[in-house]
């Protein structure tokens, strides 16, 4: 059935069942690569998107629960031509190895900085505690978030 979802500022119609996980709708119907499948059971954070500004795991969010809310994905933060400060900071700090966790880290950091624009390092670590990285890029990720927090105020 056709269902409307608001993603990155546009209303899109998708042909999916209401219980379809948002992750697959974003990736397969809307061809958005940002959110990643990592575990499918809300344990790793790779699939994180913002729903009305709240970091949400799209792998366990059925389409029906999205309703009229605004979904923001990594693509909605910025583009290659106009990077969001977090995206820029992740490049500046070279804050990845494989980059598979990057989406979740950036989206969770976005929600974190929206709540707390000047977090301490410990707050960043705590805020990303349930986002897994398997490559050992953690310290770079923390540096990138702190760097973005510094530039954020000036954007």
């Amino acid at each position, binding site marked *: 059935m056709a269902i409307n979802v608001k993603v990155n500022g546009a209303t899109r119609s998708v042909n999916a069942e209401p219980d379809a996980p948002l992750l697959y709708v974003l990736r397969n119907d809307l061809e*958005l*690569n940002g959110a990643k*499948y*990592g575990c499918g059971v809300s344990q790793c954070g790779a699939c994180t998107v913002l729903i009305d500004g709240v970091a949400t795991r799209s792998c366990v969010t059925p389409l029906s629960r999205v309703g009229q809310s605004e979904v923001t994905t990594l693509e909605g933060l910025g583009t*290659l031509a106009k990077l969001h400060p977090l995206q820029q900071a992740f490049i500046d700090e070279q804050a990845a190895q494989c980059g598979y966790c990057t989406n979740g880290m950036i989206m969770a950091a976005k929600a974190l900085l929206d709540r707390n624009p000047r977090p301490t390092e410990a707050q960043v670590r705590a805020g990303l*505690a349930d986002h*897994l990285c*398997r490559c050992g890029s953690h*310290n770079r990720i923390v540096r990138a978030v702190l760097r973005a927090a510094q530039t954020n105020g000036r954007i």
Partner: protein
Amino acid sequence: MNAPHLTRRDFTVGLGGIALAFSLAPIAMTQQPPRLPGSLETNRLLSAWLAINADGTATVLTGKVELGQGILTALSQIAAEELDLPLARVTIVSGDTGRTPNEGQTAGSLSVEASGTALRFAGAEVRAILLELAAKKFGVAVDGLKVTDGTITAPDGRRVSYGELASEADLKREATGKVAPKPVAQHRLVGQSSPRVDLPAKVTGGGAFVQDLRLPGMLHGRVARPPQYGAQLETFDEAKVRAMPGVVTVLRDGSFLAVAAEREEQAIKAVEALSASAKWKAGPALPDPARLYEQLKALPTQDTVISNKDGPLLASGAKVVEATYRRPYQAHAALGPSCAMAQMRDGQLTVWTHSQGVYPLRGTIARALGMKPPSIRCIHMEGAGCYGHNGADDVAFDAALLARASNGRPVRVQWTRAEEFMWEPYGPAMTMQARGAVADGRIVDWNYDVWSQAHNMRPGDPDGINLLSSWYLADAKPPGPARQAAAPNFAGDRNAIPTYDLPRQRITHHLIKDNPLRTSALRTLGAYANVFAVESFMDELAAAAGVDPISFRLAHVTDPRERAVIEAVAKAANWKPGEKGNGVRGRGIGYSRYKTIAAYTAVIVEVEVDRATGKISVPRAWSATDAGLIISPDGLINQIEGGIIQSASWTLHEHVRFDRNGITSRDWASYPIMTMPDVPKIENVLLNRPNDRPLGAGEASQGPAVAAIANAFAAATGRRLRELPFDPARVKAALA
């Protein structure tokens, strides 16, 4: 020019190895082809490595692939350096059996040495060819020409660009290896921390991974795995699943059961229905986890003495120390489970895969499916960070099986988290037994035995099919045998031979021939466990000798580069000889030269032990590394630091759980790893050796890190942990 003039080169290209060997046998006997540097030796044409394009860009071709280690950036730097092109004008194509050289597997920290060396020499030679063409065009000597950013300038100011010379440059010729690469002093790009070429796409949601590939008409595939190793499918409800929405293919072949559907969530529902209806005959029981190591040691082994030095017999008064160390099965557990796409059209199979070796994969799929390798093309695309032989090849074969049954439509197969945990090949459980002796502050005897299952069960084995699903097909083809790997790379015995100068030593590898749990290559192979054991034992011997562990190591090294990294890390950490722990805090060191031929790395860590909960934290770590000529300092630090963190996670948390009925580690709750708040702060020192060749460093820090943690715990508490992981239960038992 177009006369049918058959050169030896054309002959090679046009006819194949067998005809060549025949016809040229007499020549080959008198004229050995010159030995070429790096992978040029096995892929000898310049055009196999480089193309100069009319738009002035260069295309680099490499058989090595990106695993998250930044290798494509490093290789682009090397090629751009030698060609005198800006990095932005170099594009790189990697791991495609239709286009790139065959460089086997991307593994063992060998890529910079193999592919990088080939590109260095090929780049220098291609640049020389372009210069010659320009010299001819201008009627001047090559010596007077200058190259800047791909434009050649004559002494009188005339210019010509690489792009303009592209059509005349014949690169379909064998490399000579005779054009010297640039001296280090002239490097502009090598040695600089070039930003990773893949990151912009990864931070903006650009298509970067095989998971992101979408083809028109693509189906979503899933496999209904058996409940345990070796279980056999008896019945399942095919009709019910066929009637489910979106289901296009239901494939049963022996005990291989899979489905493909229009939509991903439909495929998931369909595979759940398949699994729910399937009846299986149980497979063999797994070992009893409570007696795992005894049971493993009782299995048949192939024993090899890999080093034997008969020095003077023990003097009386020598202190003898004995210890046994253990490492459990550990998982790669890439953050993104394995994924692949395959399409079969007109007898041609194309597979998009994050395999570490597209050529070995192609050959093995060909044998498994009874196809000819030329009718299969395997194209590498990145997957999530790859730390060795995970499910990448297996899922590629799953996709191929489903594609063959899906009428030309491409099929994307995504393994689930549970599937990856339960079916990937693990890093083997290992036992390391050491007996040594010290006298007068020096080691006088060293005996070391290591027991391990195979670490190399990748596709490409000539005697078996190392692809999971092939073992379950009606026409099942079993895996290859466990194999002993040779020096210097070794496998379960990697780094079992210490680099220390020891008067007497005997080191024996016991290769367990059986596979009670599926194992293969996990980052460092046996080095993680062997360096854990060797370096823990060094501290145990140092303690017996009453000598500071760093002084003790320095007393046993002969290579000045080893000495330099150990001294550098001690300096960075401000190590105080004879420093002592205080019951809850302490520091320790671990050192190794990876594979005894690659990068030198020493690590010091500080641990904090919560005696009540048994939790060990690692707040800080320091490292020092000598990887020869450094291509990208930041890339190197990323590898070293990532390796320390990954090793700390293996060391404190990780072991594959199982019971007699099967694997019970199925998600991140049953296989926990280190998380952000527990990750140590790390300071890294790099010792650049611009005049020495680059040494592989992607796996250099894991061994030293585990040993440093073990030694720090011993320094903190006076007790020693010899069985991994150092989880709270073991810590409490050690402190009791």
